[in-house]
């Protein structure tokens, strides 16, 4: 039995039952990013990007490539969730709100996939 009126259900009022997923994913990606981002700063300071040959040799190590891809996924996932929250909180004009939310998701997915493809191209490609 539902406590919601048929009209309320049609209008989509009430819980969408997915708020906690968003909340939890933002925290879990934050937890992953704490060590991963410090690791990234450390390897940059270590001179991994000094020139193309050094970067390519470093990137072709499977462990390094794995961590880079995990870093990219966590970065863009976290950014997508957090930027969506900011838009939901501050952009009240409906078309801009919906457009902004769609743009954030599309941009994060495009850039994230491009970054992963780039890592694979450098690490695996000839």
């Amino acid at each position: 039995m539902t406590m919601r009126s048929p009209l309320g259900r049609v209008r989509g009022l009430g819980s969408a039952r997915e708020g906690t997923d968003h909340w939890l994913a933002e925290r879990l990606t934050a937890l992953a990013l704490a060590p991963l981002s410090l690791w990234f700063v450390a390897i940059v300071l270590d001179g991994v990007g000094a020139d193309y040959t050094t970067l390519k040799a470093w990137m072709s190590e499977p462990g390094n490539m794995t961590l880079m891809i995990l870093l990219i996924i966590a970065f863009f996932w976290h950014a997508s969730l957090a930027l969506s929250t900011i838009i939901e909180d501050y952009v009240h004009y409906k078309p801009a709100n919906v457009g902004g939310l769609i743009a954030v998701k599309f941009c994060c997915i495009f850039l994230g996939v491009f970054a992963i493809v780039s890592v694979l191209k450098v690490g695996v490609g000839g």
Partner: protein
Amino acid sequence: MAVSILQRITGSGLAVGLLIFTYWLGAAAYGPEAYATAQAFLTSWFGCLLLFGFTVALYFHLCNGIRHLFWDIGWGFKMETTTASSVAILVGTVVLTALTWIIGLSG
């Protein structure tokens, strides 16, 4: 307190940082010449200024983010604790940024 809204401001700044991060990786994927161009930009004075800003934002967002995770499990809500953790976040940001750039510029 100001530290709270700064989490969103630094986070938005770091999203711009993600664009630079992706540009850097993409340049490497396009080959040695494109990568050399990206490196020249990132090691120019303007590139270094951007990177400096990103390290400040990263360390602040990281330190304050850790506090948020503790808040989420119900720790550290007392007034004197939040004041102390705010100070710790600011000190942590300055120390980590200084350490990073001392190592980065001496290497």
